[in-house]
């Protein structure tokens, strides 16, 4: 037993066990002015926190409640969220903040809004481009979100509060980057880091910072062996699958996933207009849903990490990532970077029999 084992156990449980998560959030709810659930990196948790709410990234295993289904082509994450009635947390949430990104999430929001019950919904209408008009618009929408959340919590979102929240989250990002450096140096197991980083999106930020300080200080005594590969995809919370990849010979040296490196790679700058800085931060995010910075950044990241292969873990029926994958895979192959696509059904975690042979042959190929 090492000093970080309890941290890992707790974080894994936050991600994999909906009952544990629920119990934790009940206690958070009792000591905060409410919990606001949000989707994607485009929603700045900093603004939610500055309004006095506990920001909760909606991620992890949602459990097995089986509710109504949305129409077929929606992605498996959105389907699972809807079928489990807001990931089983509807009664604990004060509200939900949606991004205006992929059509699956837009439809989820729209269907959710037609329900008479359930938490209140807000939308952060972020743009599809990254140019001047986009920056101005996003800045105005961030201000709008801040004032709407402040009204909901009967407080204000002052620049000071927002600045303080940004500093806290930047500290977390910095610590996560330290962990990523250790993963790259093979001194930290990637699946452990993913568990911690993902749980951190749900935990109280001060509590998480303390955990992360301890976790970032830990190191494996021997470097990990195995083929250096990188993970890519939208949200990646199937820890069992990631663990299975490692058990099959992959040494995951980094990622480009939304709840991993893409979350922590850059700090939000401070100084000047604080909303403009947050907008700039969002617009610089490499993601296939809105801004097309994803493709070039993937190859660059793979080269930086010395990865000889990229495993794409796409959510089933994820339209943005399919389009991105089709283009990326062809280009990466030309650069002699091998790729493997595994489609993940959000409500059905773990390694599926159909993927086992493909993973084994991919590892042999590397």
């Amino acid at each position, binding site marked *: 037993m090492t000093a970080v084992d309890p941290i890992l156990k707790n974080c894994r449980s936050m991600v994999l066990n909906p009952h544990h998560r629920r119990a934790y959030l009940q206690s958070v709810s009792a000591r905060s002015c409410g919990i606001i659930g949000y989707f994607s990196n485009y929603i700045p948790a900093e603004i939610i926190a500055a309004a006095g709410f506990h920001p909760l990234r909606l991620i992890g295993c949602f459990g097995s409640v089986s509710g109504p289904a949305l129409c077929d082509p929606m992605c498996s994450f959105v389907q699972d969220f809807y079928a489990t009635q807001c990931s089983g947390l509807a009664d604990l949430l004060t509200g939900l903040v949606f991004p205006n990104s992929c059509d699956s999430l*837009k439809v989820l929001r729209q269907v959710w809004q037609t329900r008479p019950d359930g938490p209140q919904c807000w939308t952060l209408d972020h743009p599809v481009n990254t140019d001047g008009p986009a920056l101005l618009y996003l800045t105005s929408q961030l201000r709008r979100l801040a004032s709407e959340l402040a009204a909901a919590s009967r407080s204000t979102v002052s620049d000071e509060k927002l600045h303080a929240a940004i500093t806290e989250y930047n500290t977390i990002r910095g610590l996560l980057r330290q962990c990523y450096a250790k993963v790259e140096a093979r001194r930290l197991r990637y699946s452990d880091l993913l568990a911690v980083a993902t749980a951190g999106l749900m935990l109280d930020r001060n509590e998480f910072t303390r955990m992360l300080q301890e976790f970032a200080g830990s190191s494996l005594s021997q470097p990990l062996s195995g083929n250096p590969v990188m993970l890519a995809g939208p949200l990646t919370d199937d820890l069992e699958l990631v663990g299975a990849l490692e058990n099959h010979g992959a040494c995951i040296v980094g990622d480009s996933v939304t709840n991993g490196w893409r979350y922590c790679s850059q700090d939000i700058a401070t100084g000047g207009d604080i909303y403009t800085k947050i907008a700039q931060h969002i617009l610089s995010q490499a993601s296939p849903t809105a801004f097309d910075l994803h493709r070039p950044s993937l190859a660059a990241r793979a080269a930086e990490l010395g990865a000889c292969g990229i495993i794409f873990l796409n959510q089933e029926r994820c339209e943005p990532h*399919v389009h991105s994958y089709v283009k990326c895979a062809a280009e990466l192959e030309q650069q002699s970077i091998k790729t493997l696509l595994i489609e993940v059904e959000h409500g059905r975690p773990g390694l599926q029999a159909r993927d086992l042979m493909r993973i084994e042959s991919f590892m042999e190929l590397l």
Partner: protein
Amino acid sequence: MESSRTILTKIFTDYYLGAAQAKKDGKPIAYVTAFTPVEILRAMDITCLYPESYAVVCSASGKAGDMIGSSGMGQFAGDLCSYSLISLGMDHAERLPYGGLPEPDFMVATNNQCGTTLLWFRLWSQRKNIPLFMIDYPTGSENTDQNEYVYRQYLALIEFVKKQTGRDLDQRVLAQQAANSRAACKLWSQVHVLNQAALQIDAAKLANALFPIVAARGTPAVCRYCETLIHEHSRENENAVIAAQPSFRLLWHGYPLWFLPKRYPSFNDDRFQIVLNDYTLWWDLDYPAADTLESLIRPYTSTYLNWLPQRRIDWTEQLVRDYAIDGVILHANRSCRRALAHVIPLRDHLLRQGIPSIILESDMANPDYYSPEKMNSQLESFKESILAA
């Protein structure tokens, strides 16, 4: 006086031959999505082509399967929009209707109908290695900052086109285009109104009549076409051929089935007929009178698929009243995520109002998702529910 058929053929020919000629003459060509503010592009003398409209032609010509197979989207095709797949397949499939579309110099995509268009056009422009301009329209009308934002993007579009082609915006042409679009949309809505009191224009004919308002909106020919249609089918016209009146008037909600010769499944019973497909009314765009660049904000921000579901539900309910509808068939089109958002709530709402309604699952362009047996049997029980109502 020219018949509507002659005018339609002429608009069609002008569109395809005009594009081929533009290519020969070295004039710039843009591929655009269905709800692009083409008035701006035409005022910069750009030939605009609609891949979605071409996908309809390909589907109606029985080419959908081949083209989807050539799209390069392989195992993912089952999750994606058929229009996008057919278009992506255009670059590799053979023996295309009208020889295919001429290659574009750049593309313009908008998200006022769906997010798919952005993903599809981005991938396509990358494959073709040509520039793409994306216009972002905020969803829903609750957002008051959106006008300024859309306006700024229009200015950026003009700069983009200038950079690509060296051409400038002609304000006079822009005003003409906007005025023509406004008039054409009003007339297009009046064409539908013909069927409010009695069935005067066949639903398949209306679906086939959609092309001009989609692809040539802004040109004077579309107004002439709509006026002629109204004249030909109006009760005041003694030569008008008025169809036998159905006992039960149906509304087809959503996309037609373009691969079917009659665009909709048969009811095998003349008492039941479609008097309205609300899809063709999506092009009843709301242009204000100003005929300026600003006047193009509202029609393209407030497109049907950019409305929130409640507005779509309210609108359909109003149509049910205006057109004295006895039953609603909701086409759950697997291609189109955005159009699916409200389908189940709408069906439930209509049933609560006592209006017989049914959801039929299929696809607008890919016949692989059409099962005549299943649909016939669903329609049989639907007819029974109307008779029992």
